[in-house]
């Protein structure tokens, strides 16, 4: 049960906004009324074109994320279980971790074109890092006692991998996903704002350039809801799959 206090701050902020909108002190372009934003939002969700743009962004974000999930988890587990792979790949990942991969975007445009592919490739690259690093951390720290016991009881290497290493790493994999999923959304929106002719990020810039701030904020709201919904979805999925671990460890 969420206490009532939780809504005080949010409510106060919304009230202050509406007050600023109605006071007439500022141009309505700067603080469009919540009513107008709501109208635009309903129009946005109701029409097919809005949903189409949302689908385009979602497709790019999830495409890159899914690729990064498959590749990242594989690399992470490989690094965690093989000292050679860790020695070779760890400096590569931790060395370039703090480098903004976004800087590669102009080059990606030349390589992959200005369509979806360059954006999916950048999402893939940005999502790869948290997934690899956190999966690696999990796979490396599988309790050796569990592995020794299984070996003692005559389990094969494949069986140990499938029954011990993977389940012990899954909570970390989800923690990596949880970091990477908002990153996917961020990168898609940024790249669409920089160079695109479709998608939600483009719509934000387009509404701004045509000075329709209420429309722009409706799109921002849609992006916010999308980001929030994806996060919730991941939490539900995790509590189904990783029922034995509490949510406390979700942030690594």
């Amino acid at each position: 049960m969420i206490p009532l206090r939780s809504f005080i701050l949010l409510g106060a902020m919304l009230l202050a906004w509406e007050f600023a909108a109605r006071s007439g002190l500022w141009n309505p372009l700067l603080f469009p009324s919540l009513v107008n934003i709501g109208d635009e939002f309903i129009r946005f969700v109701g029409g097919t074109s809005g949903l189409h743009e949302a689908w385009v962004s979602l497709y790019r974000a999830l495409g890159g994320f899914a690729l990064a999930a498959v590749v990242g988890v594989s690399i992470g587990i490989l690094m965690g279980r093989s000292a050679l792979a860790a020695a070779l790949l760890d400096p590569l990942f931790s060395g370039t971790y703090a480098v903004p991969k976004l800087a590669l975007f102009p080059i990606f445009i030349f390589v992959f074109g200005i369509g979806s592919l360059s954006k999916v490739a950048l999402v893939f690259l940005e999502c790869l890092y948290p997934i690899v690093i956190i999966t690696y951390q999990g796979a490396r720290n599988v309790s050796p006692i569990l592995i020794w016991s299984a070996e003692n009881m005559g389990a094969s290497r494949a069986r140990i991998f499938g029954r011990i290493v993977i389940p012990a790493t899954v909570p970390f994999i989800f923690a990596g996903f949880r970091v990477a999923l908002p990153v996917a959304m961020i990168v898609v929106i940024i790249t669409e704002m920089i160079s695109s002719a479709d998608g939600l990020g483009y719509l934000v810039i387009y509404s701004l350039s045509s000075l329709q701030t209420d429309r722009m904020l409706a799109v921002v709201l849609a992006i916010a809801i999308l980001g929030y919904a994806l996060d919730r979805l991941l939490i539900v999925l995790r509590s189904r799959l990783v029922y034995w671990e509490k949510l406390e460890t979700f942030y690594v």
Partner: protein
Amino acid sequence: MPIARVGLLLVVLAIWQVFWMRGLPDYALGPVEILKHFVAALATRELYEHIGASLMRALPGFVIGSAFGIALGLVAGTARWFDDMLSPAVFMTYPVPKIVMLPLFMLWFGIGDLSKILIIALACFYPTFINAYYGAKATPRILVWSGLNMGAGKWRIFSRVVVPSALPLVFAGLRVSLALSFIVMFATEMINARSGLGFLIQEAENSMRFDLMYTSLLSIAILGYAGDQLLRLGRRRVLAWQEPSA
């Protein structure tokens, strides 16, 4: 092991160079070429001006956002009523890409540096808040009880028990938000700026100056790496008592 690391890097660079000499499209320069252009650009004033402009946006944003994030996160992790009031709002907006607020900030605060600094601060706030929050929450009860038993006041417990025990996570949050500040800085400069590394790369792309593109790319890579190393150095200093792990 260090030999294997350097070896791998050299092999990759060598393969790249060989491929480049055998002919790659215009946009792919060889490592030697990139280095040559970079060294040449280092001798000019222009590059330093762009780097300075970028840092003047990223660093203030990082400092403001992290200071608020750490302070509010520590308090929210300690005081129940503050937690109830602030945390739901923060956690609900956490998965939202903060960069979408940039157009609005540009309307409110102008298209100059202020809107960029504030959007960077907003982006940096979240990871530091969440890490400081969980760090403070995870303070071992026994330490707090012992402190209370020995007659320490509330403020003393906060500054001597809660803050030190949250510090490792605080640094983890700082590391994420430093990386984030560079990303957001770069994005804002690519979207709308007249100076900075993001502007430089955008300009280079529009005029097909691939040498400039790679110079800007290399500069931002070095800056990001240097910032991260500096932060790790600071962490080792401050957290000398903690076992080195991540």
